[in-house]
C-alpha cells in the first residue's frame, strides 16, 4: 500500500515536472493552449502586480496537474509592461498577435486597463481584470472580476453609518481616475442619505505622497466638531504607509476616527508596523483570514508554490482564482478556446469563490461577490466585522450618478455595454471612449 502510494507520488511529481518544463520550454508545441499574463514586474506597480503573476502561474500549474484543458496543456506567456501605460497596449498586442494567447489575465491600475481596451476590441480577445475599480465601464472583451463601487465602497460607507454612527466624512484619495470617480459616487450617495455638504470634505494628494502632516492635522481638526467622523481612503499604493504612520504618530486612534480603505490589503500591510493601526478598516470581497476549507487549501497551495510560509494572499488574487476557473469552465462548455465562443459562454458561469459562496458571471461582465468589512489586527491580518448576507451583483453603471443611472450593460440580450434605458438605444463606442480618453491623459 505504502509503496503504491509512494509510486503514485512519483508519478504526480513527474507530472508536475513535465508541466513546469512544458511551461518554461521555449519550443512551444502546437497542442498547448497559451494564456497571457500582463502584469508589471518592474516599476512602481511591481509591488502589487508581481504577486498576481505568481498566483496565475500557480493556477495554471494546478490546472495542468488536473490534466490541462480540452486535453491540452496550458502554457503561461508572461510579459512585463513595466508599469508603463502605453507599453501595456504594446505588450497586449504582442500577446495576442505573436503569441496567439487564448485569453489574457492582467492589468492593475485603471489607466493601464483603459490603455489596452482598444487592443482587445480590435483583435477580439479576452481580458480578465482582477482589481476593484471605479465602474462606469462595460466592454465586450473585458471581464471584471474585481469589485465595482457598489461591491466595496457603498457597503463600507453603510457599515460606518450604521455600526459606528458616523456623521462627518473625509474622502481622502490619490489624484487619479479611480479615487476621483469613486469619491464622486460616494459624495452623491452621502448627500442622498441626508449628510450635509459641510460635513463632507474631499481631498486629493499626488501619487507616492509622503508628507501627510497637514492632511492628518486637517482630518483631526475636522473630526473635532462634536460629530463622529470617519475617513474613507482611496489612497493608493506607496502613499499609504506614510499616511498610516502619520495617523499613528498624531495619535488618531481607530476608536476615534476610523479609516476605511479600499486599496489596503494584506500585501500592503506587510510593509507597515501594524500595531498602531489596529481597528482601522478595509472593505474587500476576500480576506486571507476567512475561515473555510477552500480558502485554507488555497493558502496552503500558495505557501507551497512560493516556498514561503509568510506570503499572504489577497483580494485580487482571489479575483484571478475566480476568473481563471470561470474561463476554464467556459472553455469546457464552448468546447473551444475561440474568444468569440468563450465570451458567449462566460455569462452565467458559476464557480465557487474562496469565501464560501458561489460567484456568477453576470451579463454585464461583472460578477457576484460578498462584501466583507475587516478590521486590521496586530498580525497584519484582517478580522471580519461585517459581511453581506447575500452575494452582491456588480453594477457597471452607478445608480448614484445622474449621467450613468439610466445606463445598463447587457452583453447577452442587448449586446451592448451602455444601453440607454430612457432613449432605448445603445450608445455604442463613441459615448464610452470620450471620458476614457480624458481620464487616461490625466494620469
Amino acid at each position, binding site marked *: 500500500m505504502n509503496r503504491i502510494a509512494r509510486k503514485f507520488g512519483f508519478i504526480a511529481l513527474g507530472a508536475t515536472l513535465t508541466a513546469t518544463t512544458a511551461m518554461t520550454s521555449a519550443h512551444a508545441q502546437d497542442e498547448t493552449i497559451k494564456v497571457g499574463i500582463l502584469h508589471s514586474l518592474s516599476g512602481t506597480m511591481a509591488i502589487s502586480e508581481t504577486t498576481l503573476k505568481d498566483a496565475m502561474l500557480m493556477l495554471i500549474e494546478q490546472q495542468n496537474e488536473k490534466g490541462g484543458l480540452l486535453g491540452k496543456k496550458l502554457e503561461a506567456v508572461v510579459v512585463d509592461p513595466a508599469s508603463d501605460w502605453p507599453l501595456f497596449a504594446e505588450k497586449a498586442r504582442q500577446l495576442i498577435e505573436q503569441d496567439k494567447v487564448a485569453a489574457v489575465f492582467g492589468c492593475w491600475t485603471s489607466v493601464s486597463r483603459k490603455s489596452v481596451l482598444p487592443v482587445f476590441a480590435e483583435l477580439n480577445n479576452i481580458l480578465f481584470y482582477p482589481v476593484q475599480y471605479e465602474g462606469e465601464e462595460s466592454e465586450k472583451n473585458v471581464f471584471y472580476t474585481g469589485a465595482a463601487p457598489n461591491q466595496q465602497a457603498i457597503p463600507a460607507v453603510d457599515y460606518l453609518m450604521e455600526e*459606528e454612527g458616523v456623521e462627518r466624512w473625509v474622502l481622502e484619495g490619490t489624484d487619479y481616475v479611480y479615487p476621483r470617480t469613486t469619491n464622486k459616487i460616494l459624495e452623491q450617495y452621502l448627500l442622498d442619505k441626508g449628510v450635509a455638504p459641510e460635513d463632507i470634505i474631499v481631498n486629493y494628494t499626488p501619487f*507616492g505622497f509622503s*508628507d501627510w502632516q497637514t492632511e492628518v492635522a486637517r482630518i483631526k*481638526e475636522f473630526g473635532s466638531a462634536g460629530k463622529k467622523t470617519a475617513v474613507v481612503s482611496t489612497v493608493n499604493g*506607496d502613499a499609504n504607509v506614510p499616511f498610516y504612520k502619520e495617523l499613528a504618530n498624531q495619535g488618531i486612534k481607530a476608536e476615534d476616527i476610523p479609516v476605511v480603505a479600499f486599496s489596503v490589503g494584506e500585501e*500592503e500591510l506587510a510593509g507597515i508596523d501594524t500595531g498602531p493601526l489596529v481597528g482601522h478598516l478595509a472593505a474587500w470581497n476576500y480576506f486571507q483570514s476567512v475561515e473555510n476549507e477552500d480558502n485554507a487549501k488555497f493558502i496552503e497551495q500558495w505557501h507551497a508554490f512560493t516556498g514561503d510560509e509568510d506570503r499572504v494572499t489577497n483580494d485580487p488574487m482571489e479575483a484571478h482564482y475566480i476568473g481563471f476557473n470561470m474561463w476554464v469552465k467556459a472553455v469546457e462548455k464552448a468546447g473551444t478556446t475561440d474568444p468569440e465562443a468563450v465570451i458567449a459562454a462566460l455569462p452565467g458561469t458559476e464557480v465557487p469563490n474562496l469565501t464560501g459562496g458561489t460567484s456568477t458571471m453576470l451579463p454585464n461582465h461583472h460578477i457576484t461577490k460578498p462584501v466583507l468589512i475587516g478590521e486590521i489586527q496586530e498580525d497584519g491580518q484582517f478580522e471580519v466585522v461585517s459581511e453581506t448576507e447575500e452575494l452582491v451583483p456588480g453594477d457597471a453603471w452607478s445608480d448614484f450618478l445622474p449621467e450613468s443611472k439610466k445606463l445598463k450593460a447587457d452583453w447577452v440580450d442587448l449586446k451592448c455595454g451602455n444601453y440607454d434605458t430612457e432613449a432605448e438605444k445603445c450608445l455604442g463606442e463613441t459615448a464610452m471612449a470620450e471620458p476614457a480618453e480624458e481620464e487616461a491623459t490625466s494620469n
Partner: protein
Amino acid sequence: MVFIRTIIAIFLLVFTALLALPAGAQEDDSALRQAISGLGAEKGYSKLRQAIDVVVETGDPRGARVLDALAEGDVYRREGDGAVFIVSGRGKERNLIDPVTSEQVGTIAKSELKKVRVNNSVRRTVRDAIGALTLGAKDPDIRLSAVRTMIDNPDPDSLDVIATALEREGDDDVRTALEQARAAAILLSDAAVPDKVAAIETIREMGGQEALSLLVRARNAAGAEMRDATEAAIASVQKRLQYWSLGQNVWYGLSLGSVLLLAAIGLAITFGVMGVINMAHGEMVMLGAYTTFMVQEIMRTSFPGMLDWSLPIALPLAFLVAGSVGFAMERGVIRLLYGRPLETLLATWGISLILQQTVRTIFGPTNREVSNPSYMSGAFQLGELSITWNRLWIVVFALVVFAVLLYAMNRTSLGLKMRAVTQNRRMAAAMGIRTPWVDALTFALGSGIAGIAGVALSQIDNVSPNLGQGYIIDSFMVVVFGGVGNLWGTLIGAFSLGIANKFLEPFAGAVLGKILVLVFIILFIQKRPRGLFALKGRAVEA
C-alpha cells in the same frame, strides 16, 4: 513595540491592582470571576459590551487588567469548558493566565483556544470602562489618563463619581482635569444656566481642539439662553487655535524642509559642487534605507534587546554602502563622461534603473518594514501643537548633517582640495593635487551623505525600490533654487520651499500647492538663473 507598551500597561495595571487590593478582596473573587466569565459566553459585539459593563459594575480594579487585555486581543475562551483566560506568548503553545489572580496556570495548544473578538465599538467601551475602574488608582498619572477619557466622552451620569473623586483628590493636575471633566459633563446635563455658564468658562480656559469639540457639542444641545455664551467661547477658542495653526504650518514647513534638505544635501555636492547631473542620486538614498532595513533585521533576529540602537548603527554603514557605490560609479562611468552633461544624465539614469531593479530582485518588489525605535514614536504636546518625535529628530538630524558637511568642506584638507579642484582644476593639478582622486572622493562623499539621508527617510517613508524616485525631482529643485555650488543656498532653499509648500497646502490642496511652488521656481529661475545664492567671480565661468 506595541507589545512592550502593552506589557508596561499591564504591569502598571497589575501594580495598581495590587496596591488597591483591599483586605477583604478574597471573597469578592467569585463575583469578579463570574463577571469575567461572561466575556466569553456571549456572541455578538453588543452582548460583549453588556458583559463588559457587568465587569465594570463589580468596581474591582483588577477587572481593568482583563479589559485592557481584551482590547489588545489577548483574551481567549477555552474551547472545552468556555473558561476565559488571558493568553500570552506566540506560536503553537500559549500560556494561560488566570484573569483574576494574574498567575500563570498552565499552557495550552493554540487550536484549543478561541479568541474573544473585539471591534472598535467594543474598544471604545473598554476604554471608558478602564477610565471608570482606574479613577481610584494610587498613581496620579493613571488617574489623570482616566479623567482625560472622561473629558473626551462626557457623561452627565458621571457627575456624582466626579464629585466624590474631587473630594478625595490631592494632586493639582488631576484636580484641574477633574474640574474640566465636571464642566464637560455639566454642559451636556440639564443643570441650571449659571452652572453651565461657569462650565463654559472652565472649558474655554482649557482651550484647544478638545475644548472646541466640547463647546460645539454643547452648542448643538443647548437652548437659546446659552447660545450666545457658547458662541462667544467658541470664537475665543477658535481665535487662539488660529494663532497656533500658524505655528503649526511653520513647524510642518520646517519638517518638510528638513526632509528636502536631507534629500538634497548630497546632491548639493555631486551636482552643486562637481556639476554632475546625477540621476541616480535617489537610489543612493534608497540604498541607505535598505541598509537600515538590513541592520534592523539582523538586530531583530540576533540582538532583540538592542533594536533601538539600529539607527545609530545603520548611519555609518549606510554612509559606507552608498559611498562605495558612488565611488564605483564615479570611477567606472562618470569619470569617462566629464564635460558631456547629456551623456552623464543618460548614463546615471541608466544606473538608477539598474540599481532599482537589482534591489527589487534581491529584496522583492514589496515594501520592507522598518519600525520606528521607541524614541522616535508618538508625539508630544507643545501648547496646541502636537509635535511628532520622528519629525523633530529628523529636523535635528538634518541640521547636524548640514553642520558636519559644512565643516568638512570649509575646514578639512579634503574640503580644501575639493573646492580647489572645482574652482580651477588645472591650477589645482599644478599644485600637486591628484584631481581624479579628489573627484572620486567628492562623489563618494555626496553619495554617502545621500545614504545617511536614506536612514532618516526610512523612518517616514516606504522602504521600497521606488523610494528614491520620489525625491530626485525635489532634490534638483532645492539645489537649483538655492544656488548651485552653495551649501547655505541649499539650506535656505530647502526650508523656504518646505514652508511655502505647507502654507499653500491648506488653501490649495497638496496637488495644486506643489504645482504653484514649481511655477514659482520657474519664474524665479528666469529672474535669477543662478539661484538664491549665486557663486560670484571667475569660478563661475570656468
